[in-house]
């Protein structure tokens, strides 16, 4: 059995001249909590829609739980919990939606649904259209989590939620889901949340995967190096991600071999002030670039 829950190879999705997904490669290991990160319009949602069989790829290959969404979407959907649009049937109450949904999923758990309704403080007798944005999101999550799925795919699940509910939700996802060896793909802008629960991270921009790997590996390999010196190089180092020359100092970000890089700079006559690790947010900003000297980053693992 393939050890990947989701696998994409050179995946493309074009809308006329717009290349929403442009040769994306993605590897989500089975049993992992995977943070799928990218700016607005980076291609995250389009990728998720293709994985769910809601959109057809223009080109490339993809497998979800070992199956092709183009031909086996029913089998995939039976084993996958999805939260994409956060728009359910407006005229139905939470209880109605549970009743509607349970018939589609043999492993559906009413007990879990009741528990999530309690934990997430949801009024299940209120119509969906009358719920607040946050409560709508919670109801979508309740339905996805109660169906006993092997794979959960969540697109911006915490958008519109207050910090308390976000915290409850992250706990639920980790304690009830990820710890059971099931796979969780989480697309989010909230890097601190992803950093809190994800083991793996993939960063996309302009429809391409820029970086993918274990979060711990990323944290240990990325370093910001600040140096003082004259006429220091701005490129020509294989692991260099970015280089910025400021007043008196030059700041480098490298994605590996920081010690060798520091030694190299010192040999060039530079004085190294510090070499500090980056958190996920800083790594993300460096990888997607902020208009600075930016070197393409490849897959780490």
């Amino acid at each position, binding site marked *: 059995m393939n050890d990947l829950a989701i696998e994409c190879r050179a995946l493309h999705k074009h809308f006329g001249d717009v290349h929403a997904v442009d040769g994306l490669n993605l590897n989500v290991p089975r049993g992992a909590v995977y943070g799928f990160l990218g700016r607005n319009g980076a291609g995250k949602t389009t990728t998720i829609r293709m994985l769910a069989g809601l959109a057809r790829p223009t080109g490339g290959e993809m497998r979800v739980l070992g199956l092709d969404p183009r031909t086996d979407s029913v089998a995939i959907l039976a084993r996958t919990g999805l939260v994409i649009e956060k728009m359910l049937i407006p005229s139905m109450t939470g209880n109605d939606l549970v009743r*509607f949904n349970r018939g589609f999923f043999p492993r559906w758990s009413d007990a879990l649904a009741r528990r999530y309704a309690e934990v997430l403080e949801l009024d299940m007798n209120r119509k969906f259209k009358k719920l607040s944005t946050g409560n709508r999101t919670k109801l979508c999550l309740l339905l996805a989590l109660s169906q006993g799925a092997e794979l959960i795919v969540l697109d911006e699940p915490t958008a519109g939620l207050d910090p308390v509910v976000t915290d409850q939700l992250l706990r639920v996802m980790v304690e009830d889901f990820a710890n059971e060896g099931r796979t969780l793909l989480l697309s989010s802008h909230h890097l601190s949340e992803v950093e809190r629960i994800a083991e793996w991270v993939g960063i996309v921009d302009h429809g391409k995967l820029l970086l993918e790997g274990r979060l711990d590996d990323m944290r240990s390999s990325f370093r910001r190096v600040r140096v003082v010196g004259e006429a220091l190089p701005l490129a020509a180092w294989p692991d260099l991600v970015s280089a910025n020359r400021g007043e008196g100092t030059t700041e480098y970000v490298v994605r590996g071999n920081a010690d060798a890089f520091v030694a190299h700079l010192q040999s060039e006559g530079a004085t190294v002030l510090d070499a500090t690790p980056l958190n996920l947010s800083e790594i993300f900003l460096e990888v997607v670039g902020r208009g600075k000297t930016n070197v393409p980053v490849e897959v780490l693992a």
Partner: protein
Amino acid sequence: MYLWKYWRESRLTFGAGMVLVGVLLWGCCAHHVGPPLQGKHAQQQLNPDQIYLVVTSFLVLPLGFLALGYGSFGVGRDLGEGSGSFVLSRPRPRASFVWSDWGFGMAQLLLLILAANLVVAWAAHHIAATSGPFYTADGTLSMLSIFSVDCVAGLLLAGLIFGLTYFASVLVKSRGVLITLGVVVAYSIGKQVVKHYWPGMNLPDLTLSEFSVAHGMIIRFAGGLGWSIALRAALAMAFPIAAQILVQRRDVE
């Protein structure tokens, strides 16, 4: 469970249809529908065929609106309301959503058509129980024949409007009803225009026009009725098939 969802959406329309049938029944009961009048009053009584023709003609419009309503439910409505991603990501073939909607909608319409026609047939039959299996003794169509073909005609009209609205709703989301109304109005006007400028050319009616009528009596089936039914049935079936293909191939937003 999916049928339950369609039922939730359509139950008010079904209720409205049943109210209409109730009004029809009340009307029949309240207006001297009973044993044939005798003596000088016999002249005032409508014959069964007249009752059938008048009442069922008036039923065409409400039936059209009911079919319009049924066509606006289901997948097209979900796409219009933004819940298409949720519904169509339930683990079932997309075609099954379309055919569940269509099948259940048509079943409800069939029930309403049968109920309305039964009321009218009962009323007409009550006046003059002269029916044989297909033709009466005087060679005109029997009540059973009129009832059967009128049900088919109603079903074809309902199927045509329902199918077109359903397809249009899937195609352009919430504007399906407007498109169907536009098509029906445009066709009716176009038919009159053609009749005016090319009198020899006669476009078919939206309704089946299934009987040949003389002096208020239904004499026999209209000519080419089999072909008319077959063509309308083919057209009525083309729309859900087109809707299925569209739902299967389109990206869901």
